[in-house]
């Protein structure tokens, strides 16, 4: 099958560099217990490292050393986020990282160390992100969540943040279990799949992608933590997208859900992955140098000028057809296939700020001069109340 990382999943962190901001001994040990967080990460950057348009290297987009289990899918997603931000030449501190509670929600500490992060409350990342976004429309909002966080306790907030069209990149790191609390089934676990102890899940699964489509998300994608080539451009395109961008990333839990009988294990996902397209994100600076065979590429222009080149794998798949996408997903799910790629995009989407018609200046920069109506206005109000 095209486009997959062959063989065993590789831990994608560059060597054994550790971050000077880290401190020894804390953050709890992962299940494997072999994480060397007691070694401080040196701030030294190799002079040969590539730089992006802002003069930053990959290192400038990293965070602390992960304390997740060795081989955790989430760490690959972290690496993809780092890569995407680097390629887009984003100023790291202009990103706000917001998460809920869970293994996935710990990951914002492991990327973009110079950004403010907020590990909030279980299932409530979307509301906190929405509020943060309202306060400052100019930052980039990365919402990181898990399947427990977004498909159970946070199902309502997931839905309503998308309904509102909050300008965000909402990533669910989906492993079918509650990793942090030792392996209970989550609501995305497929019916009939088995947990580590052999117990079968009898509840129907929630497909967050299908629901995001139904709720009107203007950018919907699914990917796999083991497929960085597919995932990195999806994240980059989501960040550039204006509106609710939702990515469901299947991210196997090596501790609790990577066994036979799981439908979210590395093996299962590789065998059932059905990618409908591949992406290249073209920022306005780069000239298009890649040669595309005629008829295989669809260029989607986003409102801010960035372009997405969609290389079709499935000739029938149209990412502009929301209803078609929903049918496609249903049909393929019935056959046990996991559809990945950019599943839907509306390049002309709007976001919550445009719906509310807020001023261009971020609300958190408005001072008393423009916010306070003053005593003269108050006297008029008093007069009208007599």
């Amino acid at each position, binding site marked *: 099958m095209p486009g997959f990382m062959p063989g065993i999943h590789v831990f994608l962190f560059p060597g054994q560099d550790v971050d000077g901001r880290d401190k020894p001994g*804390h*953050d*709890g040990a992962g299940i494997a217990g072999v994480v060397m967080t007691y070694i401080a990460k040196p701030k030294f950057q190799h002079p040969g490292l590539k730089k992006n348009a802002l003069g930053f290297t990959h290192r400038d987009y990293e965070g602390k050393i992960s304390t997740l289990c060795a081989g955790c899918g989430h760490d690959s997603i972290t690496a993809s986020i780092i890569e995407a931000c680097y390629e887009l030449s984003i100023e*790291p*501190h202009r990103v*706000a990282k917001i998460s809920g509670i869970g293994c996935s929600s710990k990951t*914002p*500490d492991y990327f973009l*160390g*110079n*950004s*403010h*992060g*907020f*590990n*909030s*409350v279980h299932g*409530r990342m*979307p*509301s*906190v*992100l*929405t*509020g*943060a*976004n*309202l*306060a*400052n429309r*100019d*930052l980039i909002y990365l919402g990181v969540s898990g399947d427990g966080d977004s498909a159970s306790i946070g199902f*309502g*907030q997931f*839905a*309503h943040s998308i309904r509102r069209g909050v300008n965000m990149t909402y990533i669910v790191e989906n492993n079918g279990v509650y990793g942090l609390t030792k392996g209970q089934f989550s609501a995305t676990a497929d019916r009939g799949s088995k947990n580590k102890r052999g117990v079968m899940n009898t509840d129907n699964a929630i497909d967050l992608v299908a629901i995001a489509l139904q709720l009107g998300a203007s950018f919907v994608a699914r990917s796999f933590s083991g497929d960085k080539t597919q995932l990195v451009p999806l994240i980059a395109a989501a960040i550039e997208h204006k509106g609710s961008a939702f990515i469901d990333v299947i991210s196997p839990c090596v501790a609790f859900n990577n066994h036979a009988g799981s439908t979210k294990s590395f093996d299962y996902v590789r065998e059932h992955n059905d990618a409908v397209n591949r992406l290249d994100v073209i920022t306005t600076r780069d000239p298009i140098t890649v040669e595309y065979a005629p008829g295989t590429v669809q260029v989607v222009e986003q409102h801010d000028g960035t372009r997405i080149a969609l290389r079709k794998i499935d000739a029938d798949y149209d990412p502009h057809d929301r209803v078609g996408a929903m049918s496609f997903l249903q049909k393929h799910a019935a056959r046990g296939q996991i559809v990945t790629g950019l599943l839907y995009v509306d390049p002309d989407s709007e976001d*919550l*700020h445009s719906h*509310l*018609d*807020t*001023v*261009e200046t971020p*609300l*958190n920069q*408005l*001072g*008393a001069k*423009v*916010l*306070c*109506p*003053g*005593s003269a*206005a*108050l*006297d008029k*109000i*008093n007069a009208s*109340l*007599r």
Partner: protein
Amino acid sequence: MPVQEPISSINDFVVRFANVNGSGSASANEMFARSILRHGVPVSPRNVFPSNIQGLPTWYEVRVTEDGHLGARGGGVDMMVAMNPQTWDKDVASIEPGGYLFYDSTKPMPTSKFRDDITVIGVPLTAITNSTYTDPRQRQLFKNIIYLGAVCALLDMDPKLVEQLIGEQYKGKEKLLSSNIHALHLGRDWALQNLKCPIGLQVKKADKVGDRIFIEGNSAAALGAVYGGATVCAWYPITPSSSLADAFGSHCKKLRHDPKTGKAKYAIVQGEDELASIGIVIGASWNGARAFTATSGPGISLMQEFIGLSYFAEIPAVIMNVQRAGPSTGMPTRTQQCDILACAYASHGDTKHVLLFPEDPAEAFEFAAQAFDLAEQLQTTIFVMLDLDIGMNHRLCRPLKWDDARQYDRGKVMTAEMLEDGRDFGRYLDVDGDGIPYRTYPGTHPTKGSFFTRGTSRDRYARYSEEGSVYADNMQRLVRKFEGAQDMVPRPLQANAAKPTKYGVLYFGSTAPAMDEAIGLLKARGHELDRMRIRAFPFHSSVASFIADHDFVYVVEQNRDAQLRSLIVNENGIDPVHLIPIRHYDGTPITARFIAGAIGAHQDQLKLTPLRKVKS
């Protein structure tokens, strides 16, 4: 049977209107109240409405009070305008002996439906209305203005003052203006020609209103949020706080749009529930905007987890709690002061929160505005504790004031310049000894000042830590911070009796007007009391001093479990025997009669039996 003397009173009586909810009567009844104000006579109106929409009874009770007693009077009513057949029996029973019953006499009523100790006044309202109007909606609306006109004649009110009000309300709408004036006079003229006018209850011009304004508490609180610089409001509808969020929207439409572009300098989001609402508030505040939500008891219960996050992660938030009778759904349209403990100690673990207790719309405006400064200075949740009585009724209060020189106090925020200068930044580092650290807004500086916000314990530099000493140190700093708040929040206000006395009374919020009146009633009975109105928690040291200065202190509150008393005992280590609870909690507003009766009874007892004083 002796004939009951009809009540005779100038500018001191209670009129209650009994209407069908949704009949358009609210506008006419409010006009009645406002026109009495225009006579220079204070009024205190109160809505009593059902938890439902059209078709159920609603009452509007207007206390006309030249002496300016703005609390509910209690007892029966002096005049009942009975416009709802469904509640007829109850309404007639509530009239004081010697009082007046006003009703629609178009259809004949059996004499058993009346009483012989009241004056019955019938006006054929339906007949008058139907002979003039044909459209059903017009008939419904103008019938109200017609009875208003008749009542004006009966009470000897100046019709020109009512006309002036109608003129202001329908300014620019000539057709509506003239038809309302016409309806007013239809009723008035019929009454003058067919009834004995005026009756014993009369309104005479006085000069007792002054420059006071007439405003609903929720509207005033919302205006305070505008003046206080709130830019984000997230809310979920619940009675009686919805009108606060609605008012914020209306005020912002008028006051917060960019004059050039017309764009909004604010964002209002109706959340999918209270958890989303408080989450949005916290996210916005974390990111440097002033944000608030408005809710009631059930919403507070839902918000507990986020409130704890706000306390421990030290993120500002303003919650306006318009309290109603609980527990659970309780009585959504009845007033109470029953969330004191739920708010003071909100969330699991060791928490304490700042509460503000405004007494009326003027203080609601001031405290709402101040709440945003306090939230950012203290980096925590501030509760503005209103209740249905203040929030959903019009109250006469002093005009709202704003000092144009006043700046917003954003608290300790470290800027990019300060970080560039090399200032040591620790998110939970106590630099001044007051327990309040510096924070940074997201996006401030490329390489300095970022940190991870979370509800887990961490050290002074926001680094994750489960070490016991680190946690305890942080918890102690939070206590230090909270104690410092007592000098930042509104002070209690004390008023002493003319003569020294061993007895005192503590009260707060909407109890205030009834308390002021009750002091006079008690004095007439020979009981002198010093009083102190508490305006915030943490309690200022003067509260403990006040209690220490008296043998017994009454604590008057509108809840079953004497929650404020419990809070005082708990926080100040006071022996409960010194604090005598006076509790009113049937959902009606507390009255001076009740307070004076309850305290008077205690006082009488204390005087009768020499007590062994318990020394703690």
